[in-house]
Protein backbone atom coordinates (compact mmCIF):
# COMPACT_ATOMS: atom_id res chain seq x y z
CA UNK A 1 0.00 0.00 0.00
CA UNK A 2 2.90 2.35 0.72
CA UNK A 3 3.98 5.04 -1.69
CA UNK A 4 7.40 4.81 -3.24
CA UNK A 5 9.40 7.22 -1.10
CA UNK A 6 8.12 10.62 -2.10
CA UNK A 7 11.25 12.74 -2.46
CA UNK A 8 10.71 16.17 -1.00
CA UNK A 9 7.05 16.87 -1.57
CA UNK A 10 5.50 17.89 1.76
CA UNK A 11 2.49 15.59 1.45
CA UNK A 12 1.25 14.03 4.68
CA UNK A 13 2.38 10.55 3.74
CA UNK A 14 6.00 11.59 3.36
CA UNK A 15 5.74 13.72 6.47
CA UNK A 16 4.63 10.77 8.50
CA UNK A 17 7.78 8.88 7.56
CA UNK A 18 10.46 11.44 8.22
CA UNK A 19 8.50 14.48 9.32
CA UNK A 20 9.31 16.47 12.41
CA UNK A 21 7.64 15.79 15.74
CA UNK A 22 7.30 19.53 16.19
CA UNK A 23 6.40 22.15 13.58
CA UNK A 24 9.12 24.46 12.22
CA UNK A 25 10.03 27.86 13.62
CA UNK A 26 9.38 27.25 17.31
CA UNK A 27 11.67 28.44 20.08
CA UNK A 28 11.50 28.08 23.86
CA UNK A 29 9.39 31.19 24.27
CA UNK A 30 6.83 30.47 21.56
CA UNK A 31 6.34 26.87 22.67
CA UNK A 32 5.82 28.06 26.23
CA UNK A 33 3.44 30.83 25.25
CA UNK A 34 1.39 28.75 22.88
CA UNK A 35 0.73 25.94 25.34
CA UNK A 36 0.27 28.10 28.44
CA UNK A 37 -2.08 30.43 26.54
CA UNK A 38 -4.66 27.62 26.35
CA UNK A 39 -4.88 27.78 30.14
CA UNK A 40 -4.14 31.44 30.81
CA UNK A 41 -6.35 32.91 28.12
CA UNK A 42 -9.24 34.68 29.84
CA UNK A 43 -11.81 33.76 27.25
CA UNK A 44 -13.18 30.26 27.48
CA UNK A 45 -13.81 28.93 23.97
CA UNK A 46 -17.47 28.52 23.00
CA UNK A 47 -17.06 24.86 22.14
CA UNK A 48 -15.66 24.26 25.63
CA UNK A 49 -18.71 25.79 27.30
CA UNK A 50 -21.01 23.83 25.04
CA UNK A 51 -19.12 20.60 25.60
CA UNK A 52 -19.04 21.16 29.34
CA UNK A 53 -22.79 21.76 29.40
CA UNK A 54 -23.37 18.41 27.72
CA UNK A 55 -20.89 16.40 29.78
CA UNK A 56 -21.96 17.98 33.05
CA UNK A 57 -25.56 17.08 32.29
CA UNK A 58 -24.38 13.50 31.96
CA UNK A 59 -22.68 13.78 35.36
CA UNK A 60 -25.98 14.92 36.84
CA UNK A 61 -27.63 11.91 35.23
CA UNK A 62 -24.97 9.72 36.88
CA UNK A 63 -25.78 11.28 40.23
CA UNK A 64 -29.47 10.55 39.77
CA UNK A 65 -28.69 6.94 38.83
CA UNK A 66 -26.37 6.55 41.82
CA UNK A 67 -28.81 8.10 44.25
CA UNK A 68 -31.46 5.66 43.11
CA UNK A 69 -28.94 2.81 43.31
CA UNK A 70 -27.93 3.67 46.87
CA UNK A 71 -31.57 3.99 47.90
CA UNK A 72 -32.95 0.84 46.31
CA UNK A 73 -29.97 -1.44 45.61
CA UNK A 74 -28.47 -3.29 42.65
CA UNK A 75 -31.89 -4.72 41.77
CA UNK A 76 -32.43 -1.67 39.55
CA UNK A 77 -29.83 -3.12 37.21
CA UNK A 78 -30.37 -6.03 34.84
CA UNK A 79 -28.18 -8.38 36.87
CA UNK A 80 -29.58 -11.52 38.43
CA UNK A 81 -28.62 -15.16 38.72
CA UNK A 82 -26.94 -16.56 36.62
CA UNK A 83 -25.61 -13.25 35.19
CA UNK A 84 -24.55 -11.52 38.40
CA UNK A 85 -21.81 -9.50 36.70
CA UNK A 86 -23.32 -7.13 34.17
CA UNK A 87 -22.64 -3.63 33.00
CA UNK A 88 -20.79 -2.60 36.14
CA UNK A 89 -18.00 -5.12 35.62
CA UNK A 90 -17.95 -4.61 31.83
CA UNK A 91 -17.55 -0.88 32.42
CA UNK A 92 -14.88 -1.44 35.07
CA UNK A 93 -12.71 -3.54 32.76
CA UNK A 94 -13.31 -1.15 29.86
CA UNK A 95 -12.32 1.95 31.82
CA UNK A 96 -9.28 0.41 33.43
CA UNK A 97 -8.11 -0.74 30.00
CA UNK A 98 -8.39 2.78 28.63
CA UNK A 99 -6.01 3.97 31.30
CA UNK A 100 -3.25 1.66 30.17
CA UNK A 101 -2.26 3.56 27.04
CA UNK A 102 -1.51 6.62 29.13
CA UNK A 103 0.93 4.72 31.29
CA UNK A 104 2.40 3.03 28.26
CA UNK A 105 3.03 6.35 26.55
CA UNK A 106 4.40 8.05 29.64
CA UNK A 107 6.45 5.19 31.05
CA UNK A 108 7.41 2.61 28.45
CA UNK A 109 8.01 5.09 25.63
CA UNK A 110 10.06 7.24 28.03
CA UNK A 111 12.28 4.28 28.85
CA UNK A 112 12.59 3.51 25.14
CA UNK A 113 13.50 7.17 24.49
CA UNK A 114 10.74 7.66 21.94
CA UNK A 115 10.71 11.44 21.66
CA UNK A 116 7.44 11.61 19.77
CA UNK A 117 5.66 10.78 23.00
CA UNK A 118 6.48 14.22 24.41
CA UNK A 119 3.50 16.10 23.07
CA UNK A 120 0.93 13.45 23.95
CA UNK A 121 2.13 12.07 27.27
CA UNK A 122 0.63 14.66 29.63
CA UNK A 123 -2.69 14.38 27.93
CA UNK A 124 -2.58 10.60 27.92
CA UNK A 125 -1.62 10.51 31.61
CA UNK A 126 -4.59 12.71 32.48
CA UNK A 127 -6.77 10.36 30.48
CA UNK A 128 -5.35 7.45 32.53
CA UNK A 129 -6.11 9.18 35.77
CA UNK A 130 -9.71 10.00 34.88
CA UNK A 131 -10.32 6.59 33.34
CA UNK A 132 -9.05 4.92 36.50
CA UNK A 133 -11.32 7.19 38.55
CA UNK A 134 -14.31 6.02 36.48
CA UNK A 135 -13.12 2.41 36.68
CA UNK A 136 -12.72 2.54 40.45
CA UNK A 137 -16.30 3.68 40.81
CA UNK A 138 -17.86 0.55 39.34
CA UNK A 139 -16.66 -2.28 41.62
CA UNK A 140 -17.76 -0.14 44.57
CA UNK A 141 -21.18 0.53 43.05
CA UNK A 142 -21.45 -3.13 42.28
CA UNK A 143 -21.02 -4.10 45.93
CA UNK A 144 -24.42 -4.83 47.38
CA UNK A 145 -23.64 -2.46 50.26
CA UNK A 146 -21.27 0.10 48.75
CA UNK A 147 -20.91 1.96 52.03
CA UNK A 148 -18.95 -1.01 53.36
CA UNK A 149 -16.36 -0.85 50.58
CA UNK A 150 -13.58 -0.42 53.15
CA UNK A 151 -14.04 -4.05 54.12
CA UNK A 152 -11.80 -4.77 51.13
CA UNK A 153 -8.92 -3.08 52.91
CA UNK A 154 -6.89 -4.78 55.62
CA UNK A 155 -7.32 -2.97 58.88
CA UNK A 156 -7.52 -4.25 62.45
CA UNK A 157 -11.31 -4.34 62.76
CA UNK A 158 -13.53 -5.27 65.67
CA UNK A 159 -14.76 -8.37 63.83
CA UNK A 160 -11.15 -9.63 63.85
CA UNK A 161 -11.48 -10.59 60.18
CA UNK A 162 -9.15 -10.00 57.26
CA UNK A 163 -9.80 -9.75 53.54
CA UNK A 164 -9.29 -13.03 51.68
CA UNK A 165 -5.78 -12.40 50.40
CA UNK A 166 -5.92 -15.46 48.16
CA UNK A 167 -8.74 -13.96 46.09
CA UNK A 168 -8.07 -12.06 42.83
CA UNK A 169 -10.83 -9.65 43.82
CA UNK A 170 -8.74 -8.46 46.76
CA UNK A 171 -5.63 -8.37 44.56
CA UNK A 172 -7.64 -6.19 42.23
CA UNK A 173 -8.41 -3.74 45.01
CA UNK A 174 -4.67 -3.41 45.74
CA UNK A 175 -3.71 -3.30 42.06
CA UNK A 176 -6.21 -0.61 41.08
CA UNK A 177 -5.55 1.60 44.10
CA UNK A 178 -1.78 1.30 43.58
CA UNK A 179 -2.24 2.07 39.91
CA UNK A 180 -4.34 5.14 40.66
CA UNK A 181 -1.80 6.40 43.21
CA UNK A 182 1.26 5.82 41.03
CA UNK A 183 -0.45 7.38 37.99
CA UNK A 184 -1.30 10.44 40.06
CA UNK A 185 2.25 10.73 41.39
CA UNK A 186 3.79 10.34 37.95
CA UNK A 187 1.44 12.91 36.50
CA UNK A 188 2.07 15.37 39.31
CA UNK A 189 5.85 15.05 39.19
CA UNK A 190 5.72 15.84 35.48
CA UNK A 191 3.40 18.76 36.12
CA UNK A 192 5.48 20.55 38.76
CA UNK A 193 7.82 22.42 36.35
CA UNK A 194 4.87 23.37 34.16
CA UNK A 195 2.90 24.61 37.14
CA UNK A 196 5.89 26.83 37.87
CA UNK A 197 5.67 28.16 34.31
CA UNK A 198 1.99 28.94 34.79
CA UNK A 199 2.78 30.61 38.12
CA UNK A 200 5.35 32.83 36.41
CA UNK A 201 3.23 33.56 33.35
CA UNK A 202 -0.16 34.14 34.96
CA UNK A 203 -1.47 37.69 35.22
CA UNK A 204 -4.29 36.77 37.54
CA UNK A 205 -3.43 37.02 41.24
CA UNK A 206 -5.63 34.11 42.37
CA UNK A 207 -4.32 31.87 39.60
CA UNK A 208 -0.77 32.87 40.54
CA UNK A 209 -1.32 31.83 44.14
CA UNK A 210 -2.97 28.52 43.21
CA UNK A 211 -0.30 27.58 40.68
CA UNK A 212 2.32 28.82 43.13
CA UNK A 213 1.11 26.46 45.84
CA UNK A 214 0.80 23.54 43.41
CA UNK A 215 4.28 24.10 41.97
CA UNK A 216 5.77 23.97 45.49
CA UNK A 217 8.23 26.75 44.70
CA UNK A 218 9.91 24.96 41.79
CA UNK A 219 12.67 27.16 40.41
CA UNK A 220 14.34 25.00 37.78
CA UNK A 221 17.57 24.50 39.71
CA UNK A 222 20.06 22.23 37.95
CA UNK A 223 20.22 19.86 40.91
CA UNK A 224 16.43 19.73 41.11
CA UNK A 225 16.23 18.93 37.42
CA UNK A 226 18.75 16.18 37.92
CA UNK A 227 16.67 14.58 40.68
CA UNK A 228 13.50 15.23 38.71
CA UNK A 229 14.88 13.24 35.78
CA UNK A 230 16.08 10.47 38.07
CA UNK A 231 12.69 10.31 39.78
CA UNK A 232 10.85 10.32 36.44
CA UNK A 233 12.94 7.47 35.11
CA UNK A 234 12.51 5.47 38.29
CA UNK A 235 8.76 6.06 38.26
CA UNK A 236 8.65 5.00 34.61
CA UNK A 237 10.57 1.86 35.50
CA UNK A 238 8.11 1.14 38.31
CA UNK A 239 5.00 1.97 36.28
CA UNK A 240 5.95 -0.36 33.43
CA UNK A 241 5.62 -3.65 35.32
CA UNK A 242 2.76 -2.12 37.28
CA UNK A 243 0.63 -1.52 34.20
CA UNK A 244 1.18 -5.10 33.09
CA UNK A 245 0.31 -6.40 36.54
CA UNK A 246 -2.90 -4.39 36.80
CA UNK A 247 -4.58 -5.80 33.75
CA UNK A 248 -3.14 -9.23 34.47
CA UNK A 249 -4.86 -9.16 37.84
CA UNK A 250 -8.06 -7.87 36.24
CA UNK A 251 -7.95 -10.84 33.87
CA UNK A 252 -7.32 -13.18 36.83
CA UNK A 253 -10.67 -12.05 38.25
CA UNK A 254 -12.09 -14.10 35.41
CA UNK A 255 -9.57 -16.82 34.72
CA UNK A 256 -9.52 -17.95 38.38
CA UNK A 257 -13.21 -18.78 37.92
CA UNK A 258 -14.25 -22.11 36.44
CA UNK A 259 -16.84 -20.65 34.06
CA UNK A 260 -16.34 -21.77 30.42
CA UNK A 261 -14.85 -18.88 28.49
CA UNK A 262 -13.11 -17.51 31.58
CA UNK A 263 -10.89 -20.33 32.79
CA UNK A 264 -8.00 -19.78 30.42
CA UNK A 265 -4.28 -19.08 30.69
CA UNK A 266 -4.32 -16.83 27.61
CA UNK A 267 -6.20 -14.18 29.56
CA UNK A 268 -3.36 -12.11 31.09
CA UNK A 269 -1.41 -11.34 27.88
CA UNK A 270 -4.60 -11.05 25.85
CA UNK A 271 -6.14 -8.61 28.32
CA UNK A 272 -2.99 -6.49 28.53
CA UNK A 273 -2.73 -6.24 24.73
CA UNK A 274 -6.44 -5.43 24.52
CA UNK A 275 -6.01 -2.69 27.10
CA UNK A 276 -3.18 -1.02 25.20
CA UNK A 277 -5.08 -1.41 21.94
CA UNK A 278 -8.15 0.26 23.32
CA UNK A 279 -6.18 2.85 25.27
CA UNK A 280 -4.46 4.09 22.13
CA UNK A 281 -7.84 4.21 20.43
CA UNK A 282 -9.09 6.44 23.25
CA UNK A 283 -5.99 8.67 23.08
CA UNK A 284 -6.69 9.19 19.38
CA UNK A 285 -10.41 9.71 19.98
CA UNK A 286 -9.53 12.57 22.32
CA UNK A 287 -6.36 13.92 20.68
CA UNK A 288 -7.80 14.33 17.19
CA UNK A 289 -10.53 16.81 18.19
CA UNK A 290 -8.33 18.61 20.74
CA UNK A 291 -5.54 19.08 18.22
CA UNK A 292 -8.02 20.54 15.78
CA UNK A 293 -9.83 22.78 18.28
CA UNK A 294 -6.68 24.27 19.80
CA UNK A 295 -4.75 24.37 16.50
CA UNK A 296 -2.04 22.11 17.89
CA UNK A 297 -1.20 20.45 14.55
CA UNK A 298 2.39 21.66 14.94
CA UNK A 299 2.77 19.74 18.19
CA UNK A 300 0.62 16.69 17.56
CA UNK A 301 1.79 16.10 14.01
CA UNK A 302 0.84 13.53 11.39
CA UNK A 303 3.83 11.56 12.57
CA UNK A 304 2.15 11.13 15.95
CA UNK A 305 -1.04 9.95 14.30
CA UNK A 306 0.91 7.55 12.14
CA UNK A 307 2.80 6.11 15.11
CA UNK A 308 -0.33 5.69 17.20
CA UNK A 309 -2.03 3.99 14.26
CA UNK A 310 0.87 1.56 14.08
CA UNK A 311 0.65 0.74 17.79
CA UNK A 312 -3.08 0.13 17.41
CA UNK A 313 -2.49 -2.16 14.47
CA UNK A 314 0.20 -4.14 16.28
CA UNK A 315 -1.78 -4.57 19.51
CA UNK A 316 -4.93 -5.26 17.48
CA UNK A 317 -3.16 -8.17 15.84
CA UNK A 318 -2.19 -9.53 19.26
CA UNK A 319 -5.84 -9.29 20.28
CA UNK A 320 -6.88 -11.07 17.09
CA UNK A 321 -4.36 -13.78 17.92
CA UNK A 322 -5.98 -14.04 21.36
CA UNK A 323 -9.40 -14.60 19.79
CA UNK A 324 -8.04 -17.22 17.44
CA UNK A 325 -6.18 -18.98 20.21
CA UNK A 326 -9.30 -19.07 22.39
CA UNK A 327 -11.32 -20.56 19.56
CA UNK A 328 -8.62 -23.07 18.66
CA UNK A 329 -8.14 -24.21 22.24
CA UNK A 330 -11.90 -24.60 22.67
CA UNK A 331 -11.85 -27.09 19.81
CA UNK A 332 -8.51 -28.69 20.69
CA UNK A 333 -9.39 -29.19 24.36
CA UNK A 334 -12.26 -31.46 23.35
CA UNK A 335 -14.08 -30.05 26.37
CA UNK A 336 -17.78 -29.96 25.56
CA UNK A 337 -18.43 -26.90 27.71
CA UNK A 338 -15.65 -24.89 26.06
CA UNK A 339 -16.81 -25.99 22.62
CA UNK A 340 -20.38 -25.10 23.37
CA UNK A 341 -19.34 -21.73 24.81
CA UNK A 342 -17.51 -20.87 21.60
CA UNK A 343 -20.39 -21.90 19.34
CA UNK A 344 -22.80 -20.09 21.63
CA UNK A 345 -20.71 -16.93 21.32
CA UNK A 346 -20.82 -17.13 17.55
CA UNK A 347 -24.38 -18.27 16.99
CA UNK A 348 -26.17 -18.00 20.35
CA UNK A 349 -28.46 -15.23 21.60
CA UNK A 350 -25.56 -12.78 21.94
CA UNK A 351 -24.11 -13.59 18.50
CA UNK A 352 -24.55 -9.99 17.38
CA UNK A 353 -22.07 -8.94 20.09
CA UNK A 354 -19.50 -11.46 18.89
CA UNK A 355 -19.73 -10.36 15.26
CA UNK A 356 -19.61 -6.74 16.39
CA UNK A 357 -16.38 -7.51 18.23
CA UNK A 358 -14.90 -9.15 15.15
CA UNK A 359 -15.91 -6.23 12.93
CA UNK A 360 -14.65 -3.52 15.30
CA UNK A 361 -11.53 -5.14 16.74
CA UNK A 362 -10.24 -7.30 13.91
CA UNK A 363 -11.60 -5.94 10.63
CA UNK A 364 -11.55 -2.19 11.33
CA UNK A 365 -7.85 -2.01 12.36
CA UNK A 366 -6.83 -3.73 9.10
CA UNK A 367 -7.31 -0.39 7.36
CA UNK A 368 -4.33 0.82 9.39
CA UNK A 369 -1.99 -1.12 7.12
CA UNK A 370 -2.35 1.80 4.74
CA UNK A 371 -0.23 4.82 5.61
CA UNK A 372 -2.72 7.02 3.77
CA UNK A 373 -5.33 6.09 6.35
CA UNK A 374 -2.95 6.39 9.29
CA UNK A 375 -2.23 10.02 8.45
CA UNK A 376 -5.86 10.88 7.79
CA UNK A 377 -7.24 12.27 11.06
CA UNK A 378 -10.88 11.71 10.10
CA UNK A 379 -10.40 8.08 9.11
CA UNK A 380 -8.30 7.40 12.20
CA UNK A 381 -11.00 8.88 14.39
CA UNK A 382 -13.62 6.58 12.91
CA UNK A 383 -11.40 3.51 13.38
CA UNK A 384 -10.51 4.54 16.93
CA UNK A 385 -14.17 4.97 17.74
CA UNK A 386 -14.93 1.52 16.31
CA UNK A 387 -12.22 0.05 18.55
CA UNK A 388 -13.60 1.82 21.63
CA UNK A 389 -16.97 0.26 20.97
CA UNK A 390 -15.50 -3.08 19.98
CA UNK A 391 -13.49 -3.40 23.17
CA UNK A 392 -16.53 -2.61 25.28
CA UNK A 393 -18.45 -5.31 23.39
CA UNK A 394 -15.57 -7.72 23.90
CA UNK A 395 -15.85 -7.43 27.67
CA UNK A 396 -19.62 -7.84 27.40
CA UNK A 397 -19.09 -10.95 25.29
CA UNK A 398 -16.66 -12.46 27.80
CA UNK A 399 -18.57 -11.56 30.95
CA UNK A 400 -22.23 -11.83 30.06
CA UNK A 401 -21.89 -14.38 27.26
CA UNK A 402 -20.08 -16.85 29.50
CA UNK A 403 -22.25 -16.37 32.58
CA UNK A 404 -25.55 -16.64 30.76
CA UNK A 405 -24.90 -20.21 29.64
CA UNK A 406 -22.55 -22.22 31.80
CA UNK A 407 -22.60 -25.92 32.60
CA UNK A 408 -26.25 -26.81 33.18
CA UNK A 409 -28.98 -25.73 30.76
CA UNK A 410 -31.38 -25.60 33.71
CA UNK A 411 -29.27 -22.77 35.13
CA UNK A 412 -29.20 -20.70 31.98
CA UNK A 413 -30.67 -17.23 31.82
CA UNK A 414 -30.53 -14.10 29.72
CA UNK A 415 -29.25 -10.71 30.78
CA UNK A 416 -30.72 -7.45 29.52
CA UNK A 417 -29.50 -4.09 30.74
CA UNK A 418 -32.07 -1.75 32.25
CA UNK A 419 -32.22 1.98 31.68
CA UNK A 420 -30.28 2.45 34.95
CA UNK A 421 -27.42 0.40 33.55
CA UNK A 422 -27.33 2.72 30.56
CA UNK A 423 -27.63 5.88 32.66
CA UNK A 424 -24.75 4.77 34.85
CA UNK A 425 -22.54 3.89 31.91
CA UNK A 426 -23.16 7.07 29.93
CA UNK A 427 -22.98 9.01 33.17
CA UNK A 428 -19.47 7.67 33.72
CA UNK A 429 -18.55 8.74 30.18
CA UNK A 430 -19.85 12.18 31.12
CA UNK A 431 -17.76 12.20 34.29
CA UNK A 432 -14.65 11.27 32.31
CA UNK A 433 -15.20 13.98 29.71
CA UNK A 434 -16.06 16.59 32.36
CA UNK A 435 -12.82 15.92 34.21
CA UNK A 436 -10.95 16.04 30.92
CA UNK A 437 -12.47 19.39 29.93
CA UNK A 438 -11.62 20.84 33.33
CA UNK A 439 -8.07 19.55 32.94
CA UNK A 440 -7.68 21.09 29.48
CA UNK A 441 -8.77 24.48 30.76
CA UNK A 442 -6.78 24.54 33.99
CA UNK A 443 -3.53 22.64 33.38
CA UNK A 444 -1.15 22.53 30.41
CA UNK A 445 -2.29 19.67 28.22
CA UNK A 446 1.14 19.30 26.65
CA UNK A 447 4.25 19.05 28.78
CA UNK A 448 5.82 22.47 28.26
CA UNK A 449 9.28 21.77 29.65
CA UNK A 450 9.63 18.63 27.59
CA UNK A 451 8.62 20.58 24.48
CA UNK A 452 11.35 23.13 25.26
CA UNK A 453 13.79 20.27 25.62
CA UNK A 454 12.62 18.99 22.25
CA UNK A 455 13.13 22.43 20.67
CA UNK A 456 16.64 22.41 22.11
CA UNK A 457 17.39 19.00 20.68
CA UNK A 458 15.74 19.60 17.30
CA UNK A 459 17.75 22.78 16.87
CA UNK A 460 20.91 21.29 18.38
CA UNK A 461 22.50 24.64 17.83
CA UNK A 462 22.33 27.96 19.71
CA UNK A 463 18.73 29.09 19.32
CA UNK A 464 17.94 31.81 21.81
CA UNK A 465 14.62 33.54 21.93
CA UNK A 466 14.04 36.87 20.24
CA UNK A 467 15.25 39.76 22.46
Amino acid at each position, binding site marked *: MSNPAADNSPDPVAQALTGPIIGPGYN*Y*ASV*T*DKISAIVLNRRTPKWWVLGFAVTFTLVMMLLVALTYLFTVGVGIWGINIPVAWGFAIVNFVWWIGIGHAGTLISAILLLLRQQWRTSINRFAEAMTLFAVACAGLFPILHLGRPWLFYWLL*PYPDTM*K*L*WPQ*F*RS*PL*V*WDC*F*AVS*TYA*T*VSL*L*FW*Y*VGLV*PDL*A*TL*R*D*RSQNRVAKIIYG*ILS*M*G*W*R*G*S*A*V*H*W*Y*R*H*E*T*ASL*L*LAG*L*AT*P*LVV*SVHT*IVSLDFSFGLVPGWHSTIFPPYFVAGAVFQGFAMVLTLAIPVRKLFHLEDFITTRHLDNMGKVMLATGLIVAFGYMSETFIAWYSANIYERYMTLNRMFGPYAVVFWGVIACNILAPQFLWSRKIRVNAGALFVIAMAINIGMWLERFMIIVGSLSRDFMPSAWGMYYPTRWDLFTFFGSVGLFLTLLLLFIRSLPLISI*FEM*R*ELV*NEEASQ*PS*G*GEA
Partner: protein
Amino acid sequence: MPANRIYGLMAEFGTAEELLGAARRTHEAGYVRVDAFSPFPIEGLAEAIGFRHTRLPLVVLLGGMLGCGTGYFLQYYAAAISYPINVGGRPLNSWPAFIPITFELTILFAALSAVVGMLVMDGLPTPYHPVFNVPRFALASRDRFFLCIKARDLRFNLLSTREFLETLHPREVNTVDV
Protein backbone atom coordinates in the same frame (compact mmCIF):
# COMPACT_ATOMS: atom_id res chain seq x y z
CA MET B 1 23.54 47.52 51.06
CA PRO B 2 25.42 45.38 53.63
CA ALA B 3 26.76 42.14 52.30
CA ASN B 4 24.74 39.95 54.66
CA ARG B 5 21.54 41.27 53.12
CA ILE B 6 22.56 39.75 49.82
CA TYR B 7 21.79 36.18 48.79
CA GLY B 8 24.10 36.25 45.80
CA LEU B 9 24.73 37.48 42.29
CA MET B 10 22.77 36.20 39.36
CA ALA B 11 23.83 36.24 35.72
CA GLU B 12 21.33 35.78 32.91
CA PHE B 13 22.04 33.87 29.69
CA GLY B 14 20.12 33.35 26.47
CA THR B 15 20.95 29.75 25.63
CA ALA B 16 21.59 26.44 27.29
CA GLU B 17 25.09 26.24 25.82
CA GLU B 18 26.08 29.62 27.25
CA LEU B 19 24.82 28.62 30.69
CA LEU B 20 26.63 25.30 30.55
CA GLY B 21 29.90 27.00 29.54
CA ALA B 22 29.48 29.67 32.22
CA ALA B 23 28.70 27.06 34.87
CA ARG B 24 31.86 25.13 34.00
CA ARG B 25 34.03 28.24 34.13
CA THR B 26 32.49 29.28 37.45
CA HIS B 27 33.25 25.91 38.92
CA GLU B 28 36.80 26.05 37.54
CA ALA B 29 37.23 29.47 39.10
CA GLY B 30 36.73 27.79 42.46
CA TYR B 31 33.20 28.80 43.36
CA VAL B 32 31.34 26.00 45.09
CA ARG B 33 28.09 27.59 46.33
CA VAL B 34 26.66 27.93 42.86
CA ASP B 35 23.26 27.15 41.45
CA ALA B 36 22.09 27.15 37.84
CA PHE B 37 18.49 27.56 36.70
CA SER B 38 17.01 26.54 33.37
CA PRO B 39 13.58 26.11 31.79
CA PHE B 40 14.30 22.47 31.04
CA PRO B 41 16.82 19.84 32.17
CA ILE B 42 20.24 20.33 30.60
CA GLU B 43 22.54 17.35 30.25
CA GLY B 44 25.64 17.83 32.36
CA LEU B 45 24.61 21.07 34.06
CA ALA B 46 24.32 19.58 37.54
CA GLU B 47 27.75 18.01 37.14
CA ALA B 48 29.15 21.31 35.85
CA ILE B 49 28.32 23.07 39.11
CA GLY B 50 29.89 20.30 41.12
CA PHE B 51 26.94 18.01 41.87
CA ARG B 52 28.11 14.43 41.84
CA HIS B 53 25.24 12.01 42.26
CA THR B 54 21.89 11.64 43.95
CA ARG B 55 20.99 9.03 46.53
CA LEU B 56 17.43 8.93 45.22
CA PRO B 57 17.77 5.47 43.61
CA LEU B 58 18.92 4.07 46.95
CA VAL B 59 15.93 5.61 48.71
CA VAL B 60 13.63 4.05 46.11
CA LEU B 61 15.29 0.67 46.53
CA LEU B 62 14.84 0.83 50.29
CA GLY B 63 11.23 1.97 49.88
CA GLY B 64 10.55 -0.91 47.52
CA MET B 65 12.11 -3.41 49.91
CA LEU B 66 10.04 -2.04 52.78
CA GLY B 67 6.90 -2.33 50.62
CA CYS B 68 7.79 -5.88 49.68
CA GLY B 69 8.28 -6.88 53.32
CA THR B 70 5.13 -5.08 54.42
CA GLY B 71 3.05 -6.67 51.68
CA TYR B 72 4.18 -10.18 52.43
CA PHE B 73 4.09 -9.86 56.22
CA LEU B 74 0.61 -8.34 56.12
CA GLN B 75 -0.74 -11.39 54.34
CA TYR B 76 1.32 -13.89 56.29
CA TYR B 77 0.18 -12.35 59.56
CA ALA B 78 -3.48 -12.38 58.53
CA ALA B 79 -3.47 -15.90 57.07
CA ALA B 80 -1.10 -17.75 59.38
CA ILE B 81 -1.05 -15.92 62.73
CA SER B 82 -4.09 -13.74 63.29
CA TYR B 83 -6.81 -15.87 61.73
CA PRO B 84 -5.53 -19.26 60.55
CA ILE B 85 -8.18 -21.32 58.74
CA ASN B 86 -7.51 -24.95 57.92
CA VAL B 87 -8.91 -25.54 54.44
CA GLY B 88 -8.50 -29.25 53.78
CA GLY B 89 -4.97 -29.23 55.21
CA ARG B 90 -3.65 -26.68 52.73
CA PRO B 91 -0.65 -24.69 53.93
CA LEU B 92 -1.47 -21.51 55.80
CA ASN B 93 1.51 -19.72 54.32
CA SER B 94 0.31 -20.11 50.73
CA TRP B 95 3.04 -17.89 49.31
CA PRO B 96 2.18 -18.04 45.57
CA ALA B 97 -1.20 -16.45 46.30
CA PHE B 98 0.54 -13.69 48.25
CA ILE B 99 2.78 -12.57 45.37
CA PRO B 100 0.40 -10.16 43.60
CA ILE B 101 -0.26 -7.97 46.65
CA THR B 102 3.40 -8.15 47.68
CA PHE B 103 4.29 -6.91 44.21
CA GLU B 104 1.73 -4.11 44.25
CA LEU B 105 2.87 -2.82 47.63
CA THR B 106 6.51 -2.99 46.50
CA ILE B 107 5.67 -0.70 43.60
CA LEU B 108 3.49 1.56 45.73
CA PHE B 109 6.11 2.09 48.43
CA ALA B 110 8.90 2.53 45.88
CA ALA B 111 6.91 5.13 43.91
CA LEU B 112 5.97 7.02 47.05
CA SER B 113 9.59 7.06 48.20
CA ALA B 114 10.69 8.29 44.77
CA VAL B 115 8.36 11.29 44.95
CA VAL B 116 8.69 12.05 48.65
CA GLY B 117 12.44 11.47 48.45
CA MET B 118 12.78 13.86 45.53
CA LEU B 119 10.77 16.56 47.30
CA VAL B 120 12.64 16.19 50.59
CA MET B 121 16.07 16.24 48.92
CA ASP B 122 15.05 19.27 46.84
CA GLY B 123 13.76 21.00 49.94
CA LEU B 124 10.38 21.41 48.30
CA PRO B 125 7.88 22.81 48.98
CA THR B 126 9.80 26.08 49.35
CA PRO B 127 7.30 28.83 50.19
CA TYR B 128 9.94 31.56 49.90
CA HIS B 129 13.17 31.69 47.98
CA PRO B 130 15.39 34.75 47.39
CA VAL B 131 16.00 34.06 43.68
CA PHE B 132 12.43 35.14 42.96
CA ASN B 133 13.35 38.64 44.15
CA VAL B 134 14.98 39.19 40.75
CA PRO B 135 12.04 40.21 38.55
CA ARG B 136 13.59 38.71 35.42
CA PHE B 137 13.82 35.33 37.14
CA ALA B 138 10.20 34.74 36.10
CA LEU B 139 11.70 33.96 32.67
CA ALA B 140 13.61 31.01 34.14
CA SER B 141 10.48 28.99 33.46
CA ARG B 142 10.21 30.24 29.89
CA ASP B 143 13.32 30.91 27.83
CA ARG B 144 16.12 32.29 30.02
CA PHE B 145 19.01 30.62 31.80
CA PHE B 146 20.44 31.84 35.10
CA LEU B 147 23.58 31.23 37.09
CA CYS B 148 23.68 32.28 40.73
CA ILE B 149 26.80 32.53 42.89
CA LYS B 150 25.70 32.62 46.49
CA ALA B 151 27.07 35.09 49.04
CA ARG B 152 27.75 32.15 51.35
CA ASP B 153 30.61 31.11 49.07
CA LEU B 154 33.98 31.83 50.71
CA ARG B 155 35.29 33.36 47.49
CA PHE B 156 32.27 35.61 47.15
CA ASN B 157 32.96 39.32 46.95
CA LEU B 158 30.36 41.67 45.64
CA LEU B 159 32.78 43.50 43.35
CA SER B 160 35.16 40.81 42.18
CA THR B 161 32.43 38.20 41.72
CA ARG B 162 30.42 40.65 39.65
CA GLU B 163 33.52 41.32 37.55
CA PHE B 164 34.02 37.60 37.13
CA LEU B 165 30.42 37.09 36.04
CA GLU B 166 30.75 39.92 33.52
CA THR B 167 33.61 38.02 31.84
CA LEU B 168 31.15 35.20 31.07
CA HIS B 169 29.24 37.50 28.69
CA PRO B 170 25.86 37.35 30.37
CA ARG B 171 22.89 39.43 29.23
CA GLU B 172 22.66 40.99 32.68
CA VAL B 173 24.00 40.54 36.19
CA ASN B 174 21.60 41.16 39.06
CA THR B 175 22.03 41.29 42.80
CA VAL B 176 19.77 38.86 44.62
CA ASP B 177 18.40 40.23 47.89
CA VAL B 178 17.81 37.89 50.78
